[in-house]
C-alpha cells in the first residue's frame, strides 16, 4: 500500500469588478493511486497584492487582469471603505 499527498491549484477564478483572483488549493491524498481525501485551502489575490509568491499560472492571470486601470479603481475603492 502506498500513500501519496499532492497539492494542486484546482480552481482559479477571476471575481467581480476589481478582478480579484480567487485561488483554491487542494490537498489530495491517494492510496494506491485512488483518491481517498481532498481538502481545500483558499486565498485571494487582490489587484494591489504582492504576487511574487504565487504560482506561475496565478501570476500570469494576475498580470493579465490586473491592469493599471483596475489597480487604480481598486485603490480608490479601498479608500472609500476606510470608514463605514
Amino acid at each position, binding site marked *: 500500500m502506498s500513500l501519496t499527498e499532492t497539492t494542486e491549484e484546482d480552481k482559479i*477564478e477571476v*471575481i*467581480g469588478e*476589481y478582478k*480579484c483572483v*480567487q485561488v*483554491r488549493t487542494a490537498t489530495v491524498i491517494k492510496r494506491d493511486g485512488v483518491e481517498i481525501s481532498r*481538502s*481545500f*485551502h*483558499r*486565498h*485571494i489575490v*487582490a489587484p*494591489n497584492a504582492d504576487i511574487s509568491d504565487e504560482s506561475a499560472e496565478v501570476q500570469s492571470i494576475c498580470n493579465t487582469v490586473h491592469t493599471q486601470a483596475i489597480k487604480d479603481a*481598486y485603490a480608490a*475603492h*479601498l479608500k472609500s*471603505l476606510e470608514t*463605514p
Partner: protein
Amino acid sequence: MALTQVIGSGVGQVTDIKIGGSGSANTLDDYEEGSWTATVTGSGGNPSTAATESGSYVKIGRIVYCTVTISNKDTTGASGAVRLTGVPFTPNKSTASGNLMLYYAKSLNSTTANITPYVTASYVAFYQTDYQTSTAWGEISHAAGANFYLYTSFWYETDS
C-alpha cells in the same frame, strides 16, 4: 419545507438543489468547507514577524462563515488598527457581523460597549462602539507586543 428540484444527477453533476420553491431564491448551488490563513496586520504597520494562523470556513450558497483562533502571537512592530487579511472568498460588500474574544496587545476605549468584526474588500477590521457618546466608533488599535490573542468568527456574502 420540501426538496422541490435537483438539477443534474450523479456525483459531480448536480449543479442546483431547489428547496421550498423553484425560484433562484430557493436554490442552493454551492457548498464548500476548507481552511484559510489569517494574517494579523496593522493599518499603520505590520508585525515585524508575520503573525498568521489557519482558520476554517464553510460556504453555503453565497454566505461564507469563517472562524479563526489566533493564540499567543508576538505583534511587535505593529501599529494602528488591528486587522486580519486572508479571507477565503471575495466579499461582495462590507458587512458587520460575528463576534470576537480578545486578550493582550490591543487598546480599547474605557467606555467601549461592544466590538464587531467588519469585513471589507481587503481586510477584516474590528470596530468598537462607545456607550457614552453616540458619535464615537472606530477600530481597535494595536498595543504591540507578545501575548496577542484574538478569537473571532464572522460571516459575509460573496458573488463567487
